[in-house]
C-alpha cells in the first residue's frame, strides 16, 4: 500500500494488542516489547533494502482511490530522517522493556509507540501536502496519549491536555495554510507545487499561506513564542517517551519546515530568511537562559531541546546547501545526544525515584556506568571537540559565517557557551558532588537499560571521531531538497 517500511510498521502496530492479549494469558510482561522491537528491526531492514534505490533517484509511490490522488515520494532526505527515527524507536523500545515494567497496559504503550513512529515515517515519505498532514496527525495523536500515559498522576494529564490543545491548534493552522496554498495553485503535490510556485510571482496570499504553515510547523518544532507546551509535556511523559519526543518528534516539525521552505516557498522568491533567523536566535537564547536555573533534571533537558531547535532553525535560515547539511547533521546528533540524556535521566529516576536535582546530588558515585555515559552525552551536546555535538555545531557556525550572517552567528556562539555552562553544572551535580541521603541505597542501572545507552554513547563518539560518511549522507539529503 505504502512503502515497505511503513507497511511493516502498520502491520506490527495493528497486531501488537493481540500479542498483548496472549501476553496476559502467559503472564510474561516482556513479550509485546520484544515484538515491537522486532517490528522496528524488520522495518529498518526494509528501509535498508529500499535506500539504494531511493538514494539514486526519488521513488514515487502513487495512492489512487477514485478521484483522490496522492503519492509518496521517497528521496535521500526521507531515507536519512527515517533511518534516525527507526534507530531511535528501536533503542527506546529495548530501553522500555525494563524501564516501563512497573506500569500496566504495556501492550498499548508499545502499540502507541509503533503508531507514532509509523506516522513519522509517513511524514518524511509524503509526496504531497495532504498525505503529509494525515501522517502528521497519525504521529500527533499517539504522542498526546503517550504524554498522558501515566494517567493516575496529575502532572501527565495536565501536561497532556496543554500539549494536545496547542499542538492540534498548530495542526489546524497547517491545514488552513494548506487550503490557501490549494486556492493559489490548485494542487497539493510537492513536485507540481514547486513548479507552479517558481513560475508564479510572489504575492500576498503566498506570504499568508507561508506564515500559516510556518506557524503550524513551528508549534511542533517549538519555535520561540510557540514553545510553551514543550517544557511541560516532555518532563511529564515517561523518560523513554521524553527521549523520543525531544529526540525525534520535534525534528518532524523541523522536517516540515525544511520541505515547505525549500520545495515550495523557495528562498529566491520569498524572503523568509531574516525572519526565520530572528526566530531562531530568540528560540536558542530563550531556551538556554531558561535552562540555566532549573531544579528539575528533565525540565532542564527540555529547555535545552528548545535551544538546540534554535540552532537547527538557524542552520535552515542560512539557505545554503552547506547550512542545510549542517542542520541535518545536528538533527541526527541531537536525536542521539538528547535521547541519551533523557534515557540517563530515566535511569536515575528509575533508581532514585526523584527528578529534583538537589536530591540527585552525587548519584554518579552509585551508578558509575550511567554517570560515564551521561558525561559523554552532556559534553557532546555542549560541543566538546572529539564528540559528535562539536562537529555539527562547528558546521552550523561555519555555514552562518559563510552566508554572511555574522550577528546571528555571534549570538549562536554565545549560546553554545551558555549551554556549556549549565551542562557543566549538571555534570557537577550528578558526578562530582558527595552523595546525599536519598541516593545512599541506589544500585547500578539494569543491564537492559544500559545496553541501548552504551550503544548510543558509542555512536556519539564514533560520529565525533569519524564524521565523514555521516556528513556525506546528510549532504546527499540536503541536495535532494535544494
Amino acid at each position, binding site marked *: 500500500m505504502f512503502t515497505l517500511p511503513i507497511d511493516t510498521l502498520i502491520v506490527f502496530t495493528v497486531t501488537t494488542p493481540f500479542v498483548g492479549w496472549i501476553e496476559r494469558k502467559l503472564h510474561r510482561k516482556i513479550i509485546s516489547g520484544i515484538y515491537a522491537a522486532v517490528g522496528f528491526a524488520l522495518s529498518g531492514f526494509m528501509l535498508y533494502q529500499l535506500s539504494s534505490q531511493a538514494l539514486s533517484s526519488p521513488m514515487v509511490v502513487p495512492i489512487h*482511490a*477514485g*478521484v*483522490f*490522488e496522492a503519492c509518496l515520494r521517497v528521496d535521500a532526505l526521507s531515507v536519512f530522517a527515517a533511518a534516525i527515527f527507526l534507530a531511535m524507536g528501536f533503542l527506546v523500545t529495548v530501553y522500555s522493556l525494563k524501564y516501563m515494567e512497573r506500569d500496566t497496559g504495556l501492550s498499548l504503550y508499545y502499540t502507541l509507540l509503533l503508531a507514532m513512529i509509523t506516522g513519522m515515517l509517513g511524514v518524511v515519505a509524503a509526496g504531497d501536502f*495532504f498525505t503529509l*498532514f*494525515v501522517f502528521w*496527525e497519525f504521529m*500527533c*495523536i499517539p504522542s*498526546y*496519549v503517550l504524554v*498522558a500515559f501515566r*494517567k493516575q498522576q*496529575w*502532572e501527565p*494529564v*495536565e*501536561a*497532556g*491536555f*496543554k500539549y*494536545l*490543545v496547542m499542538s*492540534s*491548534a498548530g*495542526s*489546524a*493552522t497547517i*491545514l*488552513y495554510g*494548506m*487550503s*490557501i496554498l*490549494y*486556492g493559489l495553485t*490548485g494542487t*497539493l503535490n510537492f513536485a507540481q507545487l514547486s513548479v507552479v510556485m517558481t513560475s508564479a510571482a510572489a504575492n500576498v496570499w503566498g506570504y499568508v499561506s507561508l506564515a500559516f504553515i510556518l506557524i503550524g510547523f513551528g508549534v511542533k518544532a517549538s519555535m520561540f513564542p510557540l514553545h*510553551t*507546551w*514543550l*517544557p*511541560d509535556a516532555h518532563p*511529564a511523559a515517561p523518560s523513554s517517551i521524553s527521549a523520543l519526543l525531544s529526540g525525534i518528534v520535534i525534528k518532524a516539525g523541523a522536517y516540515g519546515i525544511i520541505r515547505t521552505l525549500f520545495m515550495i516557498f523557495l528562498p529566491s522568491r520569498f524572503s523568509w530568511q531574516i525572519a526565520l533567523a530572528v526566530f531562531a536566535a530568540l528560540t536558542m537564547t530563550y531556551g538556554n537562559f531558561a535552562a540555566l536555573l532549573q531544579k528539575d533534571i528533565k525540565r532542564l533537558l527540555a529547555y535545552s531541546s528548545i535551544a538546540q531547535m534554535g540552532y537547527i532553525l538557524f542552520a535552515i535560515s542560512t539557505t545554503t546547501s552547506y547550512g542545510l547539511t549542517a542542520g541535518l547533521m545536528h538533527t541526527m546528533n541531537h536525536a542521539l545526544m538528547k535521547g541519551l540524556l533523557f534515557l540517563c535521566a530515566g535511569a536515575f529516576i528509575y533508581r532514585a525515584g526523584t527528578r529534583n536535582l538537589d536530591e540527585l546530588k552525587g548519584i554518579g558515585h552509585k551508578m558509575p556506568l550511567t554517570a560515564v555515559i551521561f558525561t559523554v552525552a552532556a559534553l557532546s551536546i555542549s560541543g566538546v571537540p572529539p564528540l559528535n555535538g562539536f562537529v555539527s555545531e562547528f558546521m552550523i557556525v561555519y555555514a552562518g559565517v559563510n552566508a554572511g550572517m555574522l550577528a546571528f552567528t555571534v549570538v549562536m556562539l554565545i549560546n553554545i557557551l551558555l549551554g556549556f555552562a549549565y551542562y557543566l553544572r549538571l555534570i557537577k551535580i550528578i558526578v562530582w558532588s558527595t552523595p546525599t541521603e536519598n541516593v545512599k541505597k541506589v544500585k547500578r542501572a539494569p543491564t537492559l537499560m544500559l545496553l541501548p545507552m552504551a550503544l548510543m554513547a558509542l555512536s556519539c563518539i564514533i560520529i565525533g571521531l569519524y564524521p565523514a560518511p555521516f556528513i556525506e549522507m546528510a549532504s546527499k539529503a540536503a541536495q535532494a531538497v535544494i
Partner: protein
Amino acid sequence: MIPLSYYLAFTAILYIVGIYCLATKRNMIRLVLGIEILVNAANLNFIILSANWKTGFVDPFAHSIVIISTALAGCISAVALTIVVYAYRHYGTLDARKLRRLRG
C-alpha cells in the same frame, strides 16, 4: 453571485473565533470545541476554493480532503475528551485555569 472574497473573509473570521476561544475560554470542553472551529475554518476554505477554478466545475479532490480531515478532527476530539475526563477526576473541575500547577 457572491464574490469569493466574502467567503474567504468568513473563514478568516471563523479562524479568529477559534483562536479567541482557545485564548480566553476557561471550560476545557470549550477549548476542545475551539480546536474543532479551527479545523472547520480550514475545511470550509477547501470547499470554497474547490469551486473557484472553473464555473460549473467543483474539484472533488478538495472534498475528499475535507472528509478525511473531518475524521481526523474526530479522532483528536475523542482523545481530548478522554484527557478531559481524567483531568476532571484529578481536579474535580473543568476550569482550565485551575490546571495551573505547571509553569511552562
